[in-house]
C-alpha cells in the first residue's frame, strides 16, 4: 500500500468499520453485502475488459451478456431480496446502466400494480420467464415532464375490439425509453385514450414491438436506437413510432380505469395512486445522489492524499495536496454532503415503506405531501451531487479528466438524473406549490403538520421580515440544533417572501398562471431553502442515533461543516433576514476553516467507510492501495491508439503531407 495512504489510515481517530455498519443499517447487513459482492467479484464469468477501451456497441453487448448471466446466477443462488439483488447487480454492472434494467423495474412493477387479476395471469409468467422483455415508453420527442401534453393516441375500435395506436406527428415519437432501441420485445406505452369520440386522457397499454423468436420489429412498428449520448453508452435508449398498430382491448392495463367491449369508459377510483411509484423512484435518486457523490469523494480524497505538489514551506518536500486549505475547502464540504444525502435517502426509503403500508389500507392522506416534498429533495440532492462530482473531478486536476480516473463516467452516468423522472426546476416548483398552499393554510388560521410545520410559527398573521429580523439573535454556530433553527428561519422567510411576491403579482395581473410564472425564481429559491432545511434537520437527527463516541465526534464535525458551509454559501439570505449578524457570518467563515483542519486527519477513513470495492469504484486514481502512477501507465498502454507502435495515420496522412509540402 502507498505509504501516504497507510499513514492516513493509521492516524484515524475512529474505526471506519463501525461507520460502515451505520451506513449499511447494521453489522449483519454489512456482512451480507460483502458476501454477495464476493460472489460476483470471485466469479471469472463476470470478468471483462476495461469498458473504456470498448466501442459503444461492444459496451452494449457486454452489458447484455452480464445481465443474462446475472439473471441466471441470481436464480441459482436463490437471491430474491430487493436489497440483495441490488448489491449483486451493482457489483456486476458498476454504476452503469443496464439495458434490461427497465424490464425489472418499470415494466414488471407496472404490470404488477396496474394489471387486473386476469391480466396478471396472462402477462406476468412470461415476464418473469423473460420470454417477454419489456420497457416503459412514456417520454416523447416533443414531451417530457408535462405528461398531459403527450400526443400518442390509442383509439378504441368497438367493431374489432381493438385499440389502434398511432404516433401522429414527429414530436409524438416515443423517444428515450431505455432498452427500447434493440433489447425489448414489448413496451408499456402511455397514450391518450380515445373512445366513443372522446379523449379520456393518458392510459397505459401493453404493446408488442418485436416478433418473438426472430426479434424483428413487427409490421407497423418503427423502432431503433436514438444514437450516442453524453453517457449511458451501454443503454439502447430508443425511439418507437406506431402506424395504425392494433392491439386487443385486453392490452390496456385495467386494474383502475377500463374500457368496456362496447367502448364505454369506466373511470379510475383515484388518480393519486401513481404517486406511490414516483415517490419510490425519487427516493432511489436521492440514494443514488449520495452514492455517486460518495464514490467521487472517495476517488478525489484518496488521490489528494497520494498526490504531492508544489510547496507549502520553502525547502520542504512537496506536501500532499490534501494539506492545502483550498483543496480541503473543495472536498470536505462535499464529503459532508455525501453523508447528509445518505441519511436523507435512508429516511425517504423508510417513509416510503411506512406510507405504502397506509396506502394498502386505503389511507392516501399523506401521499400528496410526501409526493410534493420528495420532488424537491430529488432536485436538491441531484443538483448538488451533480455539481459536486464535477468539483471532485476538477480537484483531481488534469488526471481527473482522463477516463482512468473513473470520474467522467460517474458524472455522465449521474447527470441525467437532473432531468429524468421529472426535470429539476419543475420538481422544485411542485414543492413550492405545496409550500405556498401550506403557507396560505397557515395564513387563514389552520395549522399544518410534517416538515412544513415551521410555517405555523408565522402564527396565522403576517409576520413582516423586519419582525423576523427583530428577533433576538440566538444562533449558536457550534450547536447543530441551533443551526437547524437558523435554516428553518431562512426557509420560512423565503417561503413568506415568495408568497407575498406571488400575491403582489396576482394583484397586478389577471391570470394565476402568469403570476406564478413571474414569481417562479422566488419560488424555486424558497423550495431550495426548504429542502436545505430538511437535509440539515435529518443529518442532525441522525447524530443522536450514533452510539460510538469516536464516530459521533467525527460525524458531529461533518454535520457542523455541512450546516455552516451551507450558511457561508448563502450568507445573503441569512444576513438579509437578520438571522445572522455580520460578525456571526465572519465567525461562520472562520469556523468552517477550523472544521476543515479538524476533519483533515480522518478524511481518508471517512471515505474508506463508504466501503466501495475497487471494481465498483472503477478508478485508477481512487485505488484502495494508492499505487496510482504505475497503474495509470499500465492502463494507458492498453489504449486503442497504442495497438501499434506507429499509427496507420502516419502512413495514410502524415507521410504524404510531408512529401508534398
Amino acid at each position, binding site marked *: 500500500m502507498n505509504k501516504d495512504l497507510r499513514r492516513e489510515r493509521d492516524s484515524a481517530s475512529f474505526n471506519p468499520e463501525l461507520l460502515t455498519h451505520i451506513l449499511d443499517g447494521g453489522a449483519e447487513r454489512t456482512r451480507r453485502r460483502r458476501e454477495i459482492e464476493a460472489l460476483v467479484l470471485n466469479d471469472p464469468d463476470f470478468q471483462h475488459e476495461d469498458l473504456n*477501451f470498448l*466501442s*459503444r*456497441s461492444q459496451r*452494449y453487448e457486454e452489458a447484455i451478456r452480464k445481465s*443474462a448471466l446475472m*439473471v441466471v446466477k441470481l436464480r441459482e443462488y436463490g437471491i430474491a431480496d430487493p436489497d440483495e439483488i441490488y448489491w449483486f447487480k451493482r457489483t456486476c454492472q458498476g454504476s452503469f446502466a443496464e439495458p434490461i434494467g427497465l424490464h425489472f423495474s418499470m415494466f414488471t412493477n407496472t404490470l404488477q400494480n396496474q394489471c387486473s387479476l386476469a391480466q396478471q395471469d396472462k402477462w406476468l409468467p412470461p415476464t418473469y420467464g423473460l420470454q417477454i422483455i419489456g420497457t416503459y415508453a412514456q417520454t416523447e*420527442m*416533443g414531451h417530457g415532464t408535462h405528461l398531459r401534453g403527450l400526443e400518442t*393516441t390509442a*383509439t378504441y375500435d368497438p367493431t374489432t375490439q381493438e385499440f*389502434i395506436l*398511432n404516433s401522429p*406527428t*414527429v*414530436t409524438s*415519437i416515443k423517444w*428515450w425509453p431505455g432498452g427500447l432501441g*434493440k433489447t425489448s420485445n414489448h413496451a408499456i406505452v402511455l397514450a391518450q385514450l*380515445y373512445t366513443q*369520440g372522446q379523449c379520456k386522457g393518458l392510459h397505459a397499454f401493453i404493446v408488442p414491438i418485436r416478433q*418473438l423468436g426472430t426479434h*424483428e*420489429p413487427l*409490421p407497423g412498428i*418503427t423502432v*431503433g*436506437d436514438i*444514437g*450516442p449520448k*453524453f453517457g449511458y453508452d451501454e443503454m*439502447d435508449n430508443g*425511439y418507437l413510432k406506431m402506424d395504425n398498430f392494433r392491439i386487443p382491448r385486453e392490452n390496456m392495463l385495467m386494474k383502475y380505469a377500463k374500457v368496456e367491449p362496447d367502448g364505454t369508459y369506466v373511470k379510475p377510483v383515484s388518480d393519486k395512486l401513481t404517486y406511490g411509484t414516483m415517490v419510490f423512484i425519487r427516493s432511489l435518486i436521492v440514494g443514488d445522489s449520495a452514492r455517486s457523490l460518495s464514490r467521487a469523494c472517495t476517488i478525489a480524497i484518496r488521490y489528494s492524499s497520494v498526490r504531492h*505538489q*508544489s510547496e507549502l*514551506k520553502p525547502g520542504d518536500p512537496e506536501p500532499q495536496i490534501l494539506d492545502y486549505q483550498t483543496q480541503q*475547502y473543495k472536498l470536505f464540504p462535499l464529503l459532508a454532503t455525501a453523508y447528509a444525502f445518505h441519511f436523507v435517502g435512508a429516511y425517504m426509503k423508510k417513509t416510503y415503506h411506512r406510507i405504502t403500508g397506509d396506502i394498502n389500507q386505503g389511507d392516501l392522506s399523506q401521499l400528496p405531501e410526501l409526493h410534493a416534498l420528495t420532488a424537491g429533495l430529488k432536485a436538491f440532492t441531484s443538483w448538488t451531487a451533480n455539481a459536486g462530482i464535477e468539483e471532485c473531478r476538477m480537484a483531481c486536476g488534469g488526471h481527473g479528466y*482522463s477516463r482512468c480516473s473513473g470520474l*467522467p463516467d460517474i458524472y455522465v452516468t449521474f*447527470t441525467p438524473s437532473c*432531468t429524468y423522472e421529472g426535470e429539476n*426546476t419543475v420538481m422544485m416548483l411542485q414543492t413550492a406549490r405545496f409550500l405556498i398552499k401550506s403557507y396560505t393554510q397557515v395564513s387563514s388560521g389552520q395549522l399544518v403538520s410534517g416538515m412544513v410545520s415551521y410555517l405555523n410559527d408565522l402564527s396565522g398573521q403576517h409576520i413582516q421580515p423586519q419582525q423576523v429580523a427583530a428577533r433576538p439573535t440566538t444562533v449558536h454556530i457550534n450547536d447543530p440544533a441551533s443551526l437547524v433553527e437558523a435554516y428553518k428561519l431562512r426557509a420560512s422567510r423565503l417561503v413568506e417572501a415568495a408568497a407575498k411576491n406571488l400575491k403582489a403579482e396576482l394583484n397586478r395581473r389577471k*391570470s394565476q398562471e*402568469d403570476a406564478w*410564472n413571474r*414569481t*417562479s425564481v422566488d419560488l424555486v429559491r424558497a423550495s431550495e431553502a426548504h429542502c436545505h432545511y430538511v437535509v440539515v434537520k435529518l443529518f442532525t437527527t441522525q447524530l443522536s442515533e450514533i452510539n460510538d463516541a469516536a464516530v459521533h465526534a467525527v460525524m458531529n464535525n461533518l454535520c457542523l461543516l455541512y450546516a455552516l458551509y451551507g450558511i457561508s454559501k*448563502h*450568507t445573503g439570505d*441569512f*444576513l438579509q433576514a*437578520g438571522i445572522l449578524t455580520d460578525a456571526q457570518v465572519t465567525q461562520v467563515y472562520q469556523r468552517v476553516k477550523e472544521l476543515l483542519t479538524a476533519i483533515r486527519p480522518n478524511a481518508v477513513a471517512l471515505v474508506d467507510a463508504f466501503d466501495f470495492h475497487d471494481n465498483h469504484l472503477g478508478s485508477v486514481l481512487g485505488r484502495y492501495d494508492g499505487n496510482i502512477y504505475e497503474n495509470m*501507465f499500465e492502463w*494507458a498502454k492498453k*489504449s*486503442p491508439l497504442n495497438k501499434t507502435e506507429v*499509427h496507420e495515420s*502516419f502512413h495514410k496522412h502524415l507521410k504524404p*503531407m510531408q512529401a508534398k*509540402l
Partner: protein
Amino acid sequence: MAQWNRSGYFRSSGSRDVNPDLDGERQTASFSVERLTAILDGGADNTRTRRAVEAVIHSDPGFSRENQYFQSQNERYETAVRKSVYLKEKMHQMGWTEDGPEIKYCYRALGGDLAFNVHRVFKNSILALGTDEQIAKWIPLADKYHIIGTYAQTELGHGTFLRGLETTAIFDISTQEFTLNTPKISAMKWWPGDLGRSATHAVVFAQLYIKGKCYGLHAFILQIRSLHDHSPAPGVIVGDIGPKMNFEHIDNGYLMLQNINIPRENMLSRFSQVLPDGTYMKQGSDKINYLTMIITRVQILWTEVIPMLLKACTIAIRYSVVRRQSKLNPGDPEAKILDYQTQQQKLLPLLATAYAFHFMNAYVNEFYNKGYTEIKQENFDSLPELHALTSGLKAIITEYCTAGAEVCLRACGGHGYSALSGLPFLYTKLAASCTYEGENTVLFLQTARFLVKCLAAVHSGQPIPPSAAYLYSVDSGKCQAWTKMDFLRPDIYGEAYRHRATRLLGNAATKLQALVQSGAEQHEAWNQCTVQLVQAAKAHCHYIVVKNFIDTVEKLRNEAEIQKIVKHLCDLFALHGIFSNTGEFLHAGYISGDQMDMVTASYLDLLAIIRNDAVPLVDAFDFTDESLNSALGSYDGHVYQRLYEWAQKSPTNQQVRTVGYCHGVWGSQGPAPSFPAIHRDSQPDGNTEGLLDNRNTVPSRACRYNQDPSARFLCGGQGAKTPNLGFPVSSPPAQNFKKPLQPTPSSPPRLLLSPLSSSPAKVSPGPTPLLAQVSSLK
C-alpha cells in the same frame, strides 16, 4: 430581419423554411443583427472574410463533421489528422497563409476538431524562447511540417507547479551535449497533445544541471520519432495516454526518456544559455518560462473557451423557443419554454456572460500584444501584471464558461443529454479548460499574490499597475441607490463591484498580516488564508469584467439601437452577479437588505426585456449550422425532424427498416412461449376520420404542421382532412423531409466502422444470441 446572403446550407432559403416559432422571434428584433455581428467580428470586412472562409470550408465534403458523434477514439484521431492535412492543402490552394486572417476562421468553421494544435505551441515556444539562429533553423521546418512538434511540460506527477518537474538535462562539457532523462515513473511526460502518435519533435522542459548544480527549468528541443518511418527514437518510450472525457481527436501522450543526448544548441537560449565551458548565463526575468503559457492562455480563450459558451447559448436559446411544454394559461397552446421565468434565469444571464467575455477577450488581446512586444524587447516591467491578469481571467472565464455550458445542457432537458445536441461535446471540451494551462485555483492564487503586493504598494504610496489602480480610489461608504432604476446605472453597480473587490482583498490581506504578526510562518499564514484569497481574486476578476463591459457599452455611443441592447446585457451581467453573491455585497452593509430587493426586482425585469431579443442576440454570433453541429440548435429550428434523421445515422441503426402499412395484432390466447403476430391490410376507415375531427377541436401539433408548408408531408401531404395521420413509412425517412438535413451528398459512409454497421441484418448480430439466452430461461 437579418438577411443571410451567403451560401450557408440552411440559410440560403431565408425565412421560408424556418420553424415559425423561431422565425417569429426574428421578426421582432429591436436592432440590426447584421450590424451587431459586424461589431462582434471587429468590422464588416472581417465578417465578409469570415463568411467567405466558412463557405469554402462547408462546401467541401472533406471537412464534413457529419459522423463526428458516432466515431471511436481511433476514428476521431484519424479524422483530425486527415482534416488537418487537408486544411493545409486547402489553404495553400486558396492562397491563405499561416499568419493571414483566414486561419482563425477556418478553426471556427471546423469546430476545432483538428490535430497539430500543440504544433503551434511548439512553434510559439521557439519563437518566444529561442535565439534568432534557433528560430531560423527550426521554424521553417515546422512551417512546412517537415517536423511536427509538441510541447512537453506536464509530467505524470507534476502539473501547474513547474519547479517540481523531475525531468533532468545534464550538461556534459566533454561532449558538449545535454543528456535528458525521466528518472522515475512520476517524471514521465504525461498529457502533451499530439505527442502520443503524431509528433516527431518536442520542446521538453527539464531541470538543467551543470557540474552537479541545478539551474532550474529550461526548454530543450528533442527529436522523438524517426522522420523516415515514424518509429520512436532509441531511448524514447512514447504512446497515447488513453481515452478522456473529450479531446479524443487529440493523441495526448506520454514520453519516457532514457539517456537521450542532444547538442548544446538545442537548449532554447534567448533568455539563458550554457556556454561551451559550462558557464551559465542568464538575462531577463525568472518568469520568462511563463511566457509561452501566457501566450497559450490568451489563445485558448478565443479559440477553445469563449466560443464554446457562445455556441452553447445559441443552441439552448434557439431550442427553448422551438420547444413547447406545459401551459402558461389554461386554454392557450403549450408555451415556449423560454417564456418560463426559470428558463430565462438559466439562459439569459449566460447570454450576457457570453457577451461580457467576448468583449473582455478583445481587451486582453490588446493588453497582451502591447506587453508581448515590450517583453520581446527585453523590457519585463509589464510581465507580472500580464501574468496576473491572464491567470485570473483564464480562471474566471473557463470556470464560468464551463458551468454555463453545463447549465445550457441541462436547460435542454433530456435532449441536451443526447450527443446529437452538440452540448455534451461543448461541455466536455470546456471542462478540460478548468485544469489545463494552469489549474484554476492555483491561477487565482497567483492573481491574489499580485493583488496583495499591489495593496502593499498602495499603503506605502507607490505606483501600481493599471489593472489594480482602482485599489487607490477612496471608499465611498454606502451604495447610493434609492430606487430599483438606480441599479441600472453602471456607476452604481460598478462601484458596488469595486467596493466588494476592495473589501475582500483588504480582509484577506489583514488576516494574512494578523497571522504573521501573531507568529505564524509566512507560508502557513498564506495557506490559512487561501480560501479568502481565492474569493478576493475572483471578486477582482469579476470587477474587471464588469468594468470592461461598462466601457464597451460607452464606446458604442454611435450605435443607438445596439448600444441599448448591449447596455441591457451589461446591466443583466452585473445584476446577476450581485443576485448570485448577495452575501458578499450585504456583508459589511455596502448594500442594504432593501437595496438587495431592488437589485432582484431590476434583475427580474431585465430577464423579461432581454427575452424579446434573445434569438437575435444569439443569431448575431453568426455560427454556421456546420460549426454548431447540433440537432437542437440549427438556424432553421427543425429540431425534431433533425433529431430523428440524425438518429437514423447512428451505427446502431444501420439496418433495413420495416416498410408498408400493416397492422400487427396481438392475437394470442394466454401466456405461451410463442406469440404469433397476425398481419392485416391497411384499413383507413371512418374511425380514424372521427379521431381527426375530435382532435381538431383542440389545438394539436398535427394541425400546426399542416400550416407549416415545410412540414406538410408529416400529415400525409393532404392537409387536416387526410385519413392517415402517420407519415408515409413506405419511403425512407430521409425523403420525408424536403431536403437532406445535413450536407451529405458527397460524404462517404466509410467512417461508420462500428461492428454494428457492417452487418446488413436487421437485428444486431451480437446481442441476439444473448437475448435469446435470457429468453430461454424458465
